[in-house]
Structures are given as C-alpha cells and as structure tokens.
C-alpha cells in the first residue's frame, strides 16, 4: 500500500483543518466562516461529483474548535474547544442534500 496507488480527491477548503469521519462521510469545521462542512464519501467511483454541504452558524464560538466528536448514530456533533463544548443537532436525514447549502 502506498500513496501512489491510492484514489484521491482534491478539495479546496482553505480554512478547514479540523475533521472527523462518520461511517461514510467527512465532517470539517471552517474556523474563519464558522460553519461545518459535510462531504458524502460513500460513492468513491463518483467522488469528483460529490457535493460539499455547508452548515452555517449565526454566531461564532469564542474559543477555537480543536476537535469534532460524532455520536454513534451521527445525529449530534460535539465541537470541542480548549474551554468548552458545543453540541450541534444535525438535520435528518443527514445526507439529504436539499437540507444543506452547497458550496459553489
């Protein structure tokens, strides 16, 4: 196994450096725009056509987020900062693209 024979996708996500994996999704936190992104990864053959969904916050957490922890059924996401924890109740169905605003 090496990086040369892997399947890769390139994503332009300049402000996102905190991630967590769901069962078949990738979640990231955008520290500049204070929002979550969600990328469905369950169709690797169609990965370039994946839509990146975004969930916006109306207010920003006061401390930088350093970790994301999903619950077991991917309905609640914990945003961990050094000082505190915020819970996001994720809309269901989670991967229903119509519920999210897509990145252009």
């Amino acid at each position: 196994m090496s990086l040369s024979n892997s399947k890769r996708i390139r994503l332009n996500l300049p402000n996102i450096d905190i991630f967590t994996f769901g069962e078949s999704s990738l979640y990231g936190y955008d520290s500049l725009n204070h929002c979550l992104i969600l990328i469905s990864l369950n169709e690797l053959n169609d990965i370039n056509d994946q839509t990146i969904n975004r969930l916006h916050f109306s207010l920003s957490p006061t401390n930088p987020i350093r970790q994301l922890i999903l619950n077991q059924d991917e309905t609640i996401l914990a945003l961990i900062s050094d000082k505190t924890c915020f819970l996001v109740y994720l809309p269901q169905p989670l991967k229903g693209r119509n519920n999210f605003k897509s990145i252009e």
Partner: protein
Amino acid sequence: MIYFILIKGSHQCPLNEIPSCSSINNSLIDLIWLSPIHLIVVNSHPSSSECHLYLVRPSKSNGIEYIQTFSTLKGKTNETSNKRISLHQPSNIIKLDLIKRKENDSILILLFALKSDGDIFLMEIDENQLISNEYPLSSSFNGPLRIFPSTFDNYGSDYNHSRLLCLSNCESIIILFTRDKCEINQCMYLNPSISDYYLYTIDSINFPNNENNRIIKSMIIDKLNSNIYYILDSLSNIYSIEISWIKQIKKTNIQHLIKSDYFIYQIGLIQTNTKGQCLAIITKTSNHQIKVSFF
C-alpha cells in the same frame, strides 16, 4: 447559551453549550458518547478526577440535562495492587474510552479512564439502566486496575501524550494504551469474578523514538476486523497492527502502510458502496488544498 445554524430554507439547528463547561477557569479534557444521547465529559474544574454524565434531548430548548458525577477518587483501591505507591497530588483523567460487552440479557458499557500517572480506572454501566432513565446510576469507578506482569517502572512515567483504545472481539476485550510517546501496551482485560478486574499485558510494541520526537497522534479501530487497528504518528507514518495472539501465540503483525510527504491531519475508516471499507487520510498541501486519499 444557544446559537443557531442557518440552513437553506427555513431549517435552524441549535448549537448548545454544555453548561458545566462554561466556567472561566475550566479546560475541557475529554468527551465520549455512551449512547446517541448520553455523553461523559471530563473538565479540569472543579476536579479533573471526575466525569460528568449528561443526557441530551434535541427536541427541547434546554435539552442538555446534567445527570450525575463519577469520581475516580472514590474508586475502590485494590489492596493488592502491584502498582507503585504514588505520593504526589491526585492525578488527572487524560483519556476516556469504552467498549460494550454482552452479559446475560443485558449490555454492559465498560468505561475506562486513563490518568496522568498511568493508572487506569474502570466503571461498568448497565446500558438498560442508562437508556431507561433510571437515575442516579448505581455505577462507580473501580481501580486503579492491576496490570500484570508488574514492571519496575509501572509501565512508564510519562503519560502526557498517552492514548487509550479499547478493541473487542467475540472472545476478549483488548485494551491498548501508549506511554513514553512511542510504546503501545496491548493488554487483555480479565474479569474472573465480580469486583475483580485486571489487565494482562500480552505484548508491547516499541517504535523508534530517536527521530524528531516522534509521538503517536492517533489510534483508530478497524470495525470490520476487530483485531486490527491503525496508528498515525507525528511524522505522518501510518501503520496497521494486527493482534495475532488472541487465538494462538503469534507475534503482533505490524505493517508500515504509508509515509506521507505532507502533514497528515487525520485518518479514518469509511464505509463505501463499492469497496466495502477504505482507509482515508487527510493531508494538506502548501497551497491549502485538502487531499483525501483512499486505500
């Protein structure tokens, strides 16, 4: 404090702060989900030797309900512990992990707490009691767990970069904990009788630590192969580790999978429609492009 996420259309998702975490002097040490709506939090304030249980009700406006606090200081210290006597201040919980085990008609949640002095505590929680809201729970921490065979240095002294991970298969529960940055101890959890718990170290894996202060950044479980786990180190190496001694005495199989030229943020396992399961790694290039690679 409630924030809102604005979503396309009229949807709004509240963003709720866990109340006990909002103290100015507080640092949040760890959080773990016991169930889809129950979580345990460790804070530095008022005591990092305690865990706090919360129930989350997404349908309610003030939906985060504090349930109970559990302290490792009240644990049943084992009189015959082989671990060294500690003379310093009570140590902090630095990492939590859990595993579930079927027991007769019920499911037990085994919650392990690794402390900064290397002590490991255990709490058993009846899942039925938890989900049926029978509070307060009758559970309490036991420990520190005895670790056999005993070692001259108590399985290490530097636990600041430690990780704790529980593996399970149908026969045995395996506990992994790192110490001194680059050593992984693979222990079998043994519970021969009620209130008698200990860990037996079957194998220890040492990674060379003479290059750039390598530390183990993360360990993840292969959910489809319960005796395999993956580790990521600070030098962007990924290894797969297969525990072969569960059924027969064989050496642990360590395979170096990847050395990335780019910094690896995170690794994970993804279920896919086409390939079943893939190891996914996230790297970032110098021009801020995120790359997700699948194997």
